[in-house]
């Protein structure tokens, strides 16, 4: 089936070349980073994780795209998702690969990464994150590929794919939970130390993953003869709606606890920093308000059935959902956790140009993979349709 990725229109190839250029730029910057160290990034002693780990955290959420089509299809017999399960799974595969790359580029000593396997440390959440992420990656590659292959050959998929699919459902929950535990178990990081973290991760994942999947479905429909189907998209839109409502609700809960209790150990200072500025530092304030505005826009467009069932309304809603959650989780959550620092001082963070280029490079790797996988999937679907 791989050869299906090797023939395509001019548009397809321009897109691939564009991604390759981004990858090349990112790779060059990465070589520079290897040579100079992480000093070329905007990270500091106080804000010791930045854009890379933020992307990682956000993309773990995007990987939920798979479970949100698989679960209704297999457990609730929602037939319309049958056509697009593979799209959800391949999106998850690309997202997880990006996650792993983001962890990798964030390491100070990447050549020692095998130490995580040579000295397995079960008390470290990072160890479990490695285990669940690689497991989820494997599950989705195997299931997605095998089922697509069977479709290609017009045979019914073997029974074991179904078993693996059932396993992949709770497994998807585990990746968000364990990733949330990276943050939620650290004493002294008030903004992260909240039992609701895993629930927040699940909610925002179930919004951002399917939102991207909807947008990708529209793109697939526009550029190929394969139509994921209006009904499937509408079902996904309903999922995004609920998940987005719950996400925003959870963020609201954090606000309440912080500001009504007024106890600093519930993250009040961080929220102040993020949304109003603290001690005269306010770099992230405009972005966080953009998050708030986009979230409201998304909710209005999603909750109103008229706009939700309208193609352009839904597209805007999905973009708004995706971008707002990207800001909240991919930037505000990670960077905010470090502000103020353990001495109650504010050190701000802003990514540098090479850091942004490396980040774009990793996204480009993910999108290249996604493009190839979708090209194959869509070609198979076009043939069998």
């Amino acid at each position, binding site marked *: 089936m791989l050869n299906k990725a090797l023939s395509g229109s001019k548009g397809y190839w321009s897109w691939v070349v564009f991604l390759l250029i981004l990858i090349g730029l990112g790779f060059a910057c990465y070589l520079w980073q290897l040579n*100079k*160290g*992480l*000093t070329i990034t905007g*990270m*500091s*002693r*106080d804000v*010791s*994780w930045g854009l890379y780990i933020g992307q990682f955290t956000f993309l773990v959420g995007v990987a939920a795209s798979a479970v949100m089509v698989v679960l209704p299809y297999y457990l609730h017999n929602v037939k319309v998702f049958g056509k697009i399960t593979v799209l959800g799974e391949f999106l998850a595969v690309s997202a997880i690969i990006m996650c792993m790359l983001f*962890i990798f580029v*964030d*390491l*100070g*000593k*990447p050549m*020692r*990464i*095998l*130490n*995580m*396997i*040579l*000295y397995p*440390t079960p*008390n*470290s*959440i*990072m*160890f479990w994150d*490695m285990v669940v992420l690689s497991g989820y990656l494997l599950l989705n590659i195997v299931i997605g590929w095998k089922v697509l292959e069977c479709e290609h050959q017009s045979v019914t998929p073997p029974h074991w794919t179904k078993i693996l699919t059932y396993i992949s459902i709770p497994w998807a929950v585990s990746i968000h939970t364990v990733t949330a535990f*990276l*943050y939620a*178990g*650290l*004493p*002294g*990081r008030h903004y992260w130390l909240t039992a609701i973290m895993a629930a927040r991760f699940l909610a925002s994942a179930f919004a951002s993953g399917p939102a991207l999947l909807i947008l990708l479905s529209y793109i697939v429909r526009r550029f190929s003869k394969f139509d994921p189907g209006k009904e499937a998209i509408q079902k996904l839109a309903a999922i995004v709606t609920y998940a987005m409502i719950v996400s925003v609700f959870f963020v609201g809960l954090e606000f309440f606890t912080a500001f009504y209790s007024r106890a*600093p*150990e519930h993250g009040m200072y961080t929220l102040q920093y993020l949304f109003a500025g603290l001690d005269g530092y306010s770099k992230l304030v405009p972005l966080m308000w953009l998050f708030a505005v986009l979230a409201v826009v998304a909710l209005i467009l999603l909750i109103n059935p008229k706009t939700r069932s309208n193609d352009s309304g839904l597209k805007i809603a999905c973009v708004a959902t995706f971008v707002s959650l990207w800001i909240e989780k991919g930037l505000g959550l990670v960077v905010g*956790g*470090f502000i103020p*620092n*353990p*001495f*109650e*001082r504010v*050190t701000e963070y802003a990514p540098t140009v090479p850091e942004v280029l490396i980040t774009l490079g990793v996204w480009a790797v993910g999108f290249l993979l996604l493009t190839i996988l979708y090209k194959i999937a869509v070609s198979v679907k076009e043939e069998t349709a």
Partner: protein
Amino acid sequence: MEISRRHFLKIGGICVLGLVAQPLVKAFAQSDVSKASRDPKALTGKKWGLVFDATKCKYSEGCRECILSCHRTHNVPAIDDKKEEIKWIWAEPYENAFPGQGHEYIAAEIKEKPFIVLCNHCTDPPCVRVCPTKATFKREDGIVMMDYHRCIGCRFCMAACPYGARSFNFKDPRPFIKEENKEYPTREKGVVEKCNFCVERLDAGLMPACVEACPHKALFFGDLEEPGSDVSKILRSHYTIQRKPELGTRPNVYYIIV
């Protein structure tokens, strides 16, 4: 040429497994009959601790002996850029060292009084808990130790430490070391580092460099589990506090305020 893909993948898979297994087997096959022993001169303790007496410290008058001595002994680079600074021991004003333990009417001389801060060598250290490679671990004598050979530079420990005690080598530290101590290694770009309670000196029978260097006897070091040690006596006879005790890390550095 009728090899099915399934067969090919099987063989390939086994080969990959073998490649992964090789270093694993190697790691476990290490000779573990230790032919090494402790230095008979080594200071031994069950739980090392340090007491800082703010009433004696002359930091405000310009004394920096503990810091200089520590940083010289351990080849800690002097990087001016605050964002990439590396420090094992330094001073913080009361209100920053003990956030939440002051109030608005506190005497100005206490509020701004410098307190020496360093790794607390917690009894229940979060950094050890989160390290994915056991590069940070706890010795039997309570010292939270780093194995720089194993650190992958993920900086999870920096996120976990509530005391800001850890520094990351954002760049090659060597150009920033004024005079190298040839007897101790430096670190390199990409690893985290922090105070080690001078294990290399304790193991050779010496007191920590900061304690030895303090000309005003403001630092005390000893075994907290040993009732006769200096630190135990001081803790029994003075009112002392710890940094952020509410976090449950049980720090082993204590402070005499007044």
